[in-house]
Structure formats: C-alpha cells, structure tokens
C-alpha cells in the first residue's frame, strides 16, 4: 500500500488512528523507558516523599520518595508484556486446541470442549487468582493465569471455523486429492477464522491488561517492589486522601492504554465482522 | 371516464445521501391509479420501483433518503405535504402495503393474532375484545387460512410461506383500504403458491373494492393481474398504458427489448435476445436518455445529448422516448 493510501485510511478512520497512536506512544515509553525516565524507578529518597507533581518529579513522588513518572514508564513494559504474552498464549494454545477438536471430532472434541466448559465455569479473575496462588507470584505465572481465561473463547472461534469449513465440498475435494491435513488447516481454516481471531485478540489484550493490574492490586500479581501500575495503585491506597495523584496517575495510564486497544478492536470488528458484537 | 384518479404520482424524485455519494433512486416518475384498478409498476431490480412505493406511505427513512420534489395525490390531497400524524392515519387504513419476503416481514416474537389485529384495534377504535377477535378471524378466513381461530396463538414460523403471505395480505386488508401496495408479493414464493396468491389478489378488487399497485419485475405476473402497466427504468417511468396496449404494442425500446427477451410458448422464436449492456449505476447515470447506451434504436445526435420528454400518445398512454417526439 502506498503511503498516500495509508494516510487516507487513517484520516477516515479516526478511532483506529487514535488507538494506534496510543499504542505507539506506550510502546515507545516501554522500549525507551531507561532513556526517558528522569529517575531510577526503584531509587528511594525519603526526603522528597509524598510530594505532588512538580517539574522535577512530573508525576510526584510516592511514600518512599520514588519518582512516579519513572515508575509509570517502566510499568508500561510489564503491562504490555503481560498483556501481549497472555493473549498469545491464549491464541496459540486455544486456537490450536480448537482446531484439533474441530478437525478430529469425536472423543477429542468432547474432551477439549468440556475442559473449556470447566474453565468458563469459574469467573475470570477468580481463576486467575487461584492459578497465581497455586503457582506463586511471578510474571510468567500471571501470563499463564490470564492467558488460561482466554482459551475457551479462542478454542470456540477456531473450532467453529473448522466445523463450518469441514462440510464444504472443496475440503472434501482437497482431501480426496491427498492434501495433508496440516496444509488444509493452514490454507482454508486459518483464512476463515483470521478476522474473528484478530478482533478477539485485540480486545482480549485490553482485558488482559486490566486483569493483570487487578491481580497486582490484590497482591497476587507481580512481587513488590516491581513498578507495575496495579501494584502502585494498591500501595497508594492508604494515602488516598492526602495524595490522590498517587492513585490517579497509574490508573489513568491503564485507562488510556486499554482504551487504545478497545478503540482498535471495536473498529476492526465494525469493519470486518459486525456480527461478533460481544 | 374523467373521474379524479385515486392515486396520482407526479414528477416524484427521491435521492439517497450515502457516504459513497448521492444515489438518484427516483428521478421523474409519473403514473396514476383509478378506483378499482390494478396498476403494475414493472422494472428491473434497482430501477426505483420499491422506493417509489415506499414514498407513497412516507416509509423511507430521511436521512438518508430525501424526497426531492413532486406530488403524490391521494384522493386529491398531496401526501407529501401531510403531517406525520395524518400519514399514520392513512397507513393501514386507507393505503396498506405488503412486502416481498413474508417470513422476515412478520415479527417473529409476536403471535399472528396480535399482529393481524393491530390495525383493526388501531384504526377502528374498537373497545370490545371479542369483536376484534371476530374480525381478525374473519379476515384470516377470507384470505384462505384454514382453522383461523386456532391459529391466532401461533407464531409466524409455524406458517408456510404461502400462509404467511396470506397473513400479510389479511393484515393489510383488515381495514378495507382503498389502495393496496404490493411490493413483489410473489417473488419469494414457490410457483404453485404464486398462482394461488395472484388469484387471491385478483379477487380482492371484487370483494374489497381496493385498487392495487403491484410492483414486480415479472411481466408475466403483471400480465395476469394488471389493468394498466407503468414501466420503470433507471428511476423514471418510461412507458405507461393499459396492460393490453403495453404488452401487445410496446412503444419504448426498453419495453420492446424486455418483452422480446421473455420466452413464449405461443410463438416460435429463434433465439432470445437479451438487452446488451447492463443497468446503469444510480450514482452516475448516462447523459441524455438513460437507456441510450443499450438502445437498438439509438438516434446518434439526439439520444446521448438530450433527455427525452414525455409524449402523450393517447388519453392514458404515454412514453418517454425521442422516437415519438412530435
């Protein structure tokens, strides 16, 4: 696509433009955090503790005198990483299971889908809590805990894609001439479920970031003193009255990032598949 | 026969404003219907006939639609100038409409009885439930629904296609309207059911005294049912006359081509002649006569330049073509 076409596209689709801009800003913040932060996010200086926003400390300081702005920048790394990794986990494993279930049918299908039923019977945050509780507080475990909640939806999407294609004659024809199952999957199935998977991935990244923040807020996410937005909010809770900015800044950055993903996901959904409205 | 017509459409124009551009759905449509008359509005898909029909009852959503001009005279009064409240009183009572797809035109979560009795309750101001029920059953029975009383509690999906269309017609006729607008009423039905419905509609005139505006793309259907025919092309009425005249002696090249492209069992035809080219894009009509790129009777220096004016060939016979210019 030419540059002109791309520019036109963004002009006509304001919400995607805003969403992508937001993502880019956060990505830059995450990648270049070490260069962009004015201070070390872990450095404590009790003499400047609980100071409001100033030129020196753009977002103020917390109860340990740490620079909130720097911590927020570093927090972007964690949230983006967890969000994206969790979605990838859900996407790859979930769709994989769904495709296998749809293709094989029979007992495999039954087992996989019943497993998904079980996962769906426990509300998301609670399941995530249980997983982190069982496995311990760490980023990989958070990714697993959040990713596991995405499995059922991804599995369903890809499975129904497979099922709807299976009965089509061109698959039978394809099989008849000996095309390997894997190739059939690659060409037809993935092409068919590409849009819903893309849309859901974008939207689930938004949920994943929110869930990661909630887990950390509850103390079952990243271990302190990691600079993570949810954890920062939790630590700021007791200073709510005297230093509300400590709660506001980390929460607002979560809001904006999630908003970005939702804007993109919504627009994608409107463009590609209006039926998938929830 | 100089009575005032029941309905008279004059110079109707309707545009649609979409984000892709302006669609000239209807540009210059003229026809009239007398009392007790069946007029067929015939044309290909996309020629603007449905839009014309919807305009009569002001059922188009504005935006994106906009009525650009013209008059729609019903019993002498211009419907386009009436207030919303007045139009609502006409809908379902004086002028009713039935649509192409009876399955999707009936509300799936409301019973047949409810839907058919709605216009009765609304327009006839009846307080008595029993009377409403009686009339509902009566009209359904008249339309050929067996065991109508038992079926009042049924939902639309319990009915077959033909029965649904009969229900639609019952709903439309429940208040004895003077005019029934039927938009492709048989198109989505099986051929055998089509015949039944057409027969039903033929009798409506006798039993209810209603005029019918039949919209169809099928000359065969028009031939069976209509007294007069108006042919539409690219948003304009290009020919109008009695059914016999139009079918036996078509004047406009488009009508001629259409009729000769229909297989006939009464004469031997060597080959069917489709009309060359395709229907023009409603956002970008050709200059001059809209049919000229496809016309086998093209007049080189006239048709691509000048838009043809209406030529009145007889009292109720008109055509819009340069071939007949006086």
């Amino acid at each position, binding site marked *: 696509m030419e540059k002109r076409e791309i520019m036109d596209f963004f002009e006509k689709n304001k919400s995607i433009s805003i969403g992508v801009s937001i993502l880019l800003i956060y990505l830059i913040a995450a990648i270049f955090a070490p260069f962009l932060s004015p201070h070390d996010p872990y450095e404590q200086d009790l003499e400047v503790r609980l100071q409001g926003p100033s030129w020196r400390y753009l977002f103020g300081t917390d109860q340990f005198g740490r620079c909130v702005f720097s911590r927020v920048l570093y927090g972007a790394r964690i949230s983006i990483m967890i969000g994206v990794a969790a979605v990838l986990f859900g996407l790859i494993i979930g769709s994989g299971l769904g495709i296998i279930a749809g293709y094989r049918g029979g007992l495999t299908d039954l087992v996989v889908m019943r497993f998904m039923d079980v996962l769906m019977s426990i509300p998301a945050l609670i399941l995530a809590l249980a997983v982190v509780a069982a496995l311990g507080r760490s980023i990989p475990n958070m990714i697993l805990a959040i990713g596991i909640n995405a499995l059922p939806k991804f599995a369903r999407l890809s499975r129904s894609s497979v099922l709807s294609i299976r009965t089509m004659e061109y698959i039978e024809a394809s099989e008849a001439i000996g095309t390997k199952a894997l190739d059939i999957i690659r060409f037809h199935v993935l092409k068919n479920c590409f849009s819903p998977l893309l849309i859901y991935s974008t939207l689930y990244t938004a949920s994943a970031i929110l869930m990661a923040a909630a887990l950390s807020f509850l103390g079952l996410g990243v271990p302190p003193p990691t600079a993570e937005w949810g954890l920062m909010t939790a630590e700021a809770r007791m200073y709510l009255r005297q230093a509300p900015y400590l709660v*506001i800044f980390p929460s607002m950055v979560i809001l904006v990032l999630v908003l970005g993903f939702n804007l993109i996901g919504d627009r994608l959904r409107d463009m590609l598949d209006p039926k998938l409205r929830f | 026969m100089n009575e005032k017509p029941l309905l008279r459409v004059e110079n109707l124009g309707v545009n649609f404003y979409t984000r892709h551009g302006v669609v000239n759905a209807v540009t210059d449509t003229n026809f009239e219907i007398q009392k007790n008359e069946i007029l067929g509005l015939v044309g290909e898909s996309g020629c603007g006939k449905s839009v014309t029909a919807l305009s009569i009852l002001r059922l188009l959503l504005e935006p994106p639609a906009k009525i650009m001009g013209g008059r729609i005279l019903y019993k002498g009064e211009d419907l386009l100038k009436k207030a919303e409240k007045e139009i609502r009183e006409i809908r379902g009572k004086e002028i009713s409409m039935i649509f192409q797809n009876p399955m999707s035109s*009936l509300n799936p979560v409301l019973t047949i009885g409810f839907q058919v009795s709605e216009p009765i309750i609304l327009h006839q101001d009846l307080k008595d439930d029993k009377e409403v029920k009686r009339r509902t059953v009566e009209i359904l029975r008249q339309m050929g629904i067996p065991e109508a009383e038992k079926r009042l509690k049924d939902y639309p999906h319990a009915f077959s296609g033909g029965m649904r269309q009969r229900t639609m017609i019952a709903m439309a006729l429940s208040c004895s309207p003077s005019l029934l607008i039927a938009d492709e009423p048989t198109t989505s039905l099986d051929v055998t059911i089509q015949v039944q419905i057409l027969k039903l509609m033929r009798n409506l005139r006798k039993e209810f005294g209603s005029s019918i505006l039949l919209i169809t793309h099928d000359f065969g259907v028009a031939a069976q049912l209509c007294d007069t025919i108006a042919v539409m092309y690219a948003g304009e009425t290009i020919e109008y006359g009695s059914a016999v005249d139009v079918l036996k002696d078509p004047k406009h090249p488009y009508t001629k081509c259409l009729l000769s492209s229909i297989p006939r069992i009464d004469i031997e035809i060597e080959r069917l002649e489709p009309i060359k080219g395709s229907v023009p894009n409603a956002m970008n009509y050709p200059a001059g006569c809209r049919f000229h790129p496809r016309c086998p009777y093209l007049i080189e220096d006239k048709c691509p330049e000048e838009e043809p004016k209406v030529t009145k060939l007889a009292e109720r016979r008109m055509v819009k073509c340069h071939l007949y210019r006086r």
Partner: protein
Amino acid sequence: MGIKKYVLKRLLWFVPLIFLVQTLLFFLLAVIPGDISVLIATPNAPPETIEALREELGLNRPLIIQYLDYVTSVFRGDMGKSFIFRLPVSEVVLGRLVNSLELVTVGMIVAVVVGIPLGVIAAIKKDSLYDRSICTGVLFGISMPLFFIELMVILIFGLYLEWLPVSQRGGPIWTVEGLRHIILPSLCLASICLAMIVRLTRSSMLDVLSEDYILTARSKGLKERVVILTHALKNAMIPVITVIGLQYGFLFGNAVVTEVIFDWPGIGRLAYESIIMRDFPLIRGAVLSIALIFIVINLLIDLIYLRLDPRIEYE
C-alpha cells in the same frame, strides 16, 4: 433437538461439571509446593504434631483416595473445616455467599434498569449527540480499571463529601443502614456491567430496527413509540438476556476487588483471603460456591432464553 432434550442434557451435565471443577481445584492445590501440614501448623511445631495433623487431614492416604474423597464430599455437604476460622467451611461460606449475591444482584439490576433504556436511546438517536456521548461513556466504562472507579468514588463521596459510608455492610438491604452501605459498592460494580449492557442493547436494537417487520409495523400506521416498545424491544432483548448470565459471572469475579476495597463481607473477599492465608478447605469451598452460582445462573438464563424466543421450539 427438542427443548426437553436440551434441558435434560444441560441438567445431566451439571453434576459432572462440578466434579471437573473440583478436579481442577484439586490439581491446582496439589501443585502448591511444600507440605501442607507444615505450612499450616504453627512454626516450630514438633514432628508429632505435624504427623497428627497429616493424619487428621488424611494426607497419608493414596492420592487417588484423597481425590475421590475430595470430589464426593461436597455432595455429602462436607467441605472440611476452615483453618482460619476453625468452623465447617459450609457455614463460613454460606453467609458470605448471600452477601455477595446481594451485592452483585443489586449491581446487576441497576446496570440493566439503567443500561437498557440508554442503549435503546442510543440506537434510536443514532449518530446524534446523545448517541455519541453514550458510546464514548461506554468506551471509557469498559476501559477503566474497577479499582480506580472505586477508589475515586470513595475519595469523592466518602472522604471529601462524606455522604455515604465506604466500608462494610450495614445490614439487610431493606434497612436504611443496609441501603446506605450497599449503594457505593454496588453502583461501582454496576458501572462496568452497565457499559456492556448499553453497548449490546444498542447494537441489538440497531439490528432489529433494520429488519423488515419493523417496516411492516410502521406501514400499519402504528406510532413510532409502539413500534419501538412493542415490536422492536422484545426482539432486541433476546441476545441481551443471553449475555446477562455471563455478565453475572463477570461481576462475581470483579466483586473480589470491590469487596476488598469496600471491606464487604462477601465470598469474593473470602476466596481472596483464604488464598492468601492458604486455607485450603476454605479456598475450595469459596471457589466452588462461586462456580456453582455461576453455573446455576447460566442454566437459568438459558432456560429463560428458551422461553423468550418462540422460534427455538421448532428447531
């Protein structure tokens, strides 16, 4: 398949589902490193006490027996004794469960009562200022972290304005104190659910309004208000109702945060605290109850949906 068969199938699946959920829990709890009895015993306890504890908890039995006992015990009404509370888990769980149901249900009702009309308005006045502001509000609503909304609400209504209490439950909902205490937490919970309901109602309504039968209704001369309320709304509600069951689970999950922030004595907070405290019987009891409620509600919603849509009977 007919309704009866479908309902039967769903009910039959209920029991195995409970088994499987517990299996998952058992598996998760088994993965926790360390000997459970060592973890819960007081520090520096002599080996005999630990051994006695092991016997009491049945940890010396083969794993498969432990598992079978675990999954069947719930049907006997016995879920063990809580370590922290020293009471049967079922007792502890029950009261808390009711409190959470109260909180979540109130939140849900508010979300539905406010959300559906908003969604309908947004659909009817599509692209107007009303619609755009509602949609923007919805977008922010689903993007905002729940704890943020709640902390801000506490800050403004509890700390600055001091209008309403911000912690604990004040009593049954029909009492003044009860009402005062439930308002803030339930409204916060409602806000995230509200956004989704508005959005779904709006899009469902837009779909319905473009259907042929709406045109038919208008052509009969019905007032627009009647068209919307009688003809459109019922159809539009069908997909919304099906989602309400899922929303319930979503709210229950998020209620953990709400209950922690507002110090609400609910099952979400119980699950959370028992997880932190490693009170395994209680963890199992709490999580299982939540799952049970969720499953039951979804089943009920499915049954309601079957009644709502007349087309289903004939499939």
